[in-house]
């Protein structure tokens, strides 16, 4: 099982990214299963939120929160803390949207890519980075997930940003 922990702030779309990844993983594949859920509770804009995606080749029946993640994806670098390493599996990676380098994490200027595509938030850019880094799903399937689960008028920009980000890290 691959487990991804998403960290963002209310309104950034961290849970949407978690959901899109789960949908992308299961598109057109019978032997692939996914679970995606947010940290539960009342929703508040700007408050730290967590989201989880679990991907497996058999039905995911463990609905508890991830204790050890393969990837931790952070949409806002003020949420980064060195303590997060304790939530990583051996060989796991932390990916952060940040303009400055962070020791022990991969950083990318996701806001730059989002701005290029006139997107107010970095969630699909971070999804693209994860797609490129992990290879857990193809960029095509991720694009199909956006087509299936995002409003029509913002699909094109998000798909372009996702592909651009995936390319950025697969080079």
């Amino acid at each position, binding site marked *: 099982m691959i487990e991804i922990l998403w960290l963002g702030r209310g309104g950034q779309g961290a849970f949407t990214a978690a*959901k899109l990844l*789960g*949908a992308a993983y*299961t598109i057109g594949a019978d032997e692939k*299963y*996914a*679970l*995606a*859920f*947010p940290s*539960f*509770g*009342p929703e508040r804009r700007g408050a730290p939120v967590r989201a989880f995606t679990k991907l497996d080749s058999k*039905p*995911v*029946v*463990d*609905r*508890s*929160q991830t*204790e050890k993640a393969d990837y931790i994806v952070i949409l806002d670098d003020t949420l980064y803390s060195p303590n997060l390493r304790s939530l990583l599996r051996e060989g796991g990676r932390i990916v952060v949207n940040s303009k400055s380098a962070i020791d022990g994490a991969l950083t990318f200027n996701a806001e730059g890519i989002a701005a290029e595509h006139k997107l107010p938030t970095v969630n699909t850019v971070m999804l693209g980075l994860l797609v490129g880094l992990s290879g857990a799903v193809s960029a095509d399937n991720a694009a199909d*997930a956006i087509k*299936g*689960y995002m409003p029509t008028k913002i699909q094109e920009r998000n798909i372009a940003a996702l592909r651009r980000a995936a390319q950025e890290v697969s080079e």
Partner: protein
Amino acid sequence: MKKFLSGNEAFAEGIRLARPQVISAYPITPQTIVVERLSEMVEDGSLTAEYVHVESEHSALSCAIGASAAGARAFTATSSQGLLYMAECLYYAAGGRFPIVMMNADRSTALPWNIYGDQRDSLSQLDSGWIQAYAENAQEALDLALMSYRIAEDKRVSTPYMANLDGFVLTHTYETVDIPTREQADSFLPPYETDNRIDFENPRNMAFSAGPDTNYIFKYKEQEGVLAARKVISETEAAFARTFGRQYTGLTENYLTDDVDYIIVTLGSIAGLCRETADKLRGQGVKAGVVRIRYMRPFPNDEIADVLRNAKAYAVLEKDISFGNEGTVFTNVNSALKKAGAAVNGSNYIGGLGGRNISAADIENIYTDIANGATGVNFIGIGGEDNV
């Protein structure tokens, strides 16, 4: 068609296929997304129903009762304090033998105020006369939505049906769900027809008073109706498997219980993690198993006793406590064993209250505890402080 949906959305898809004619809902917290999705379906024309916004949960169920009394298939949904606010009407619906279906998102009850998941809301209403089902995942939720009307409306049953989905862990969690076609659904579930309705051609007395000379007869018939659901659930699941290819297992679902020493009895979405833990322990030579209760009413007395009587010990894991006694599921399970004349060591684990995470380690500890002769009522996460 496969889609990546939350438990709420999956249930709404099942209800769309069941074609309710009246949906009444109070769309404020602690209500969940299920009624929002249904309102969108009515708006876009994919579901033809009268959608009634009401001013409270009490009115939501009252409205559904009125619709059912007019001969319509009715749906409503609620959660937590909303269910408790409806409590008066639960008894009216059951006593009037109105086969309404309601989805309840199982969430904590006040105080302290908390909208996270546990099962104290629905388990407090076991005596209201409703059938109570508990889903484990989003696919089962959708399938229960379809089966619920066929069970509730069966003339032998004529009883309202409450489908319970664990708050957040199931209602707000996304997974892949197979949505049946409209043709399949229509062939499985015929339109609702009943004599128990207002009819100007054939006027009849409905929702009347009954004094001491006859009241007990109505209560006896009500008990018979809920008990008849045992057979009707099994028949409905067989028909469901023929149409949709998915087979359910009646009032309980057993896992690794043929040659077993230690069993966890539980209900709802935590069962999956219990099964995974049982697998792990089997790998270490511990004969662990799981019984998942799918229906709390009618209660699976025989099914539970048949399995538990051969075990060395069992634990009941539930997100509920009846203050001053023990978890209500534990009481029911113990009664099943007592009636069957079986003496097996049992203990009760109260966990997940107010949305607290139940981990794999918590479940493994339960198996270890009962193998070591644990008894009584234990709150997961409380106790053992002296050892810190």
